[in-house]
């Protein structure tokens, strides 16, 4: 099972739920890696849904694991892509071509959910209306508050900013607009004194 129970945290930390069917005009799914499992679970409970759905799936490290199961679902429109940034122009167009009544479902890592949510919000969809279910990796997208660069797939705290090289600690404070958690210099008051890195949630 790829379901992780996030510890309780501050009010700006995003929380996720379980995908549920909701009647609408059209259905758009954006998922990565183990997020496919959440779609498959939903499809099994709602047989006619996939025939009306557009699914954008980025397998990443799970490779072929879910592909054959997805193929069997008879999805109306299925795209399998290598990364969020490769898929992004297609995602934005999907929003542009949609109308009110669109139901958006996001599943997978926090990074995928965050970026897709950010783009859905820009298209005019209220963030509280978008369904999301976390599956798989708990690595984070981190914004360095100093250089504004985003470091992907952060699993250790503290970590090194992939842009400016500062040592940053991981905060739970999260920005939907940037789709990232905040990273702040850990050794500002005592330069060089960087604690040993530990894995998140351990």
């Amino acid at each position, binding site marked *: 099972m790829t379901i992780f129970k996030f510890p309780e945290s501050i009010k700006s930390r995003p929380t996720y739920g379980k995908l549920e069917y909701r009647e609408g005009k059209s259905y758009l799914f954006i998922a990565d890696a183990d997020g496919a499992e959440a779609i498959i679970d939903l499809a099994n409970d709602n047989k006619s849904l996939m025939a009306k759905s557009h699914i954008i799936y980025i397998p990443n490290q799970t490779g072929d694991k879910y592909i054959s199961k997805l193929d069997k679902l008879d999805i109306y429109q299925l795209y399998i892509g290598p990364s969020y940034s490769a898929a992004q122009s297609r995602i934005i167009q999907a929003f542009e071509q949609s*109308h*009110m009544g669109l139901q958006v479902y996001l599943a997978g890592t926090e990074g995928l959910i965050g970026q897709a949510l950010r783009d859905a919000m820009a298209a005019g*969809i209220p963030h509280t*209306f978008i369904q999301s279910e976390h599956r798989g990796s708990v690595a984070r997208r981190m914004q360095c508050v100093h250089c504004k660069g985003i470091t992907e797939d952060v699993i250790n705290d503290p970590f090194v900013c992939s842009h400016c090289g500062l040592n940053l600690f991981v905060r739970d404070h999260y920005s939907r607009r940037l789709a990232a958690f905040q990273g702040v210099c850990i050794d500002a008051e005592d330069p060089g004194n960087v604690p040993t890195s530990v894995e998140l949630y351990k």
Partner: protein
Amino acid sequence: MSGSEKINVKVSNVVPLNDLVTRFEFKRTDGKLFPTFSGGAHTVIELKDGDITRRNPYSLMSDPMDQEGYSISVRRDDAGRGGSLFLHNNVKVGDDAVLSHPVNLFSLDLRAKKHLMIAGGIGITPFMAQIKQLDRSHGNWELHYSVRNPKLGTYVDDLISMHPNDVNVYYDDHKNFIDIVNLLDGQPLGTHLYICGPKGMIDWVVGEAKKLGWPSEVIHFEEFLAPKPGEPFQVKLSASNKVINVGENESLLEAIEREGVDAPYLCRGGACGQCETSVIEADGDFVHRDHWLEDDEKLSRKKIMPCVSRFSGKTLVLDR
């Protein structure tokens, strides 16, 4: 503090528009400019009717940028508690009145890519101001306005002549109704929906929109909840150490005010939460008529909204 800041005015014009609706225009007595406001705002008008002070909220329908005068349009309600009747029958040019500073509980969401407006009858008033505001900023709006018939179509001629492409009018008597399902279907992502009119219309439009998968976050509505008359009842005001009687045609809030107790209020229509009052003791039935309290709060018997709600029973003790 009750209500918002007050402005002394004189009635500068009274314009009957049709059998039911009259427009009242006001100018400040101190010669200063009125505050500007955001479309959808309302003002509470205070008028002396003999010994009692009437306070009624009405949407400001004038141009928000027009600081020389304010206007409201009032529909005469023969079956109501007399507020609109008093205005129609008694108020003349030159009369004194007091207006509150504008308060907005029905504002536009300026992030919207399109503002879709649905008006029923006198519900057109907030949209009049909002349309003027949006036109100034070249906002994208569309109005669907349902009236009984052309004679009672308040401002229909003005709206159609100024905005022939964006205003659609429907006449009940001609069996001409808004085709809400088709209207909502196909609206661009980022559309916000605004409804103002009778409760039945609001419930119907909101229901259809939700069925079509519209998020509730983009659906905005304002219902003009006037306090309904009801059986008289007695109330003990614990903090003021008074026992008061609430008459058939006055609201609990009005009775409290009449007794000289200063109770907070803002919209006087059950929507804003400002008059929320704690119940110390209750032996009887609550008649909750507001939109503010959650269901569990209404059932708790610990809170009441005196501007619109009532009570029937042996004892009601409030913390006022």
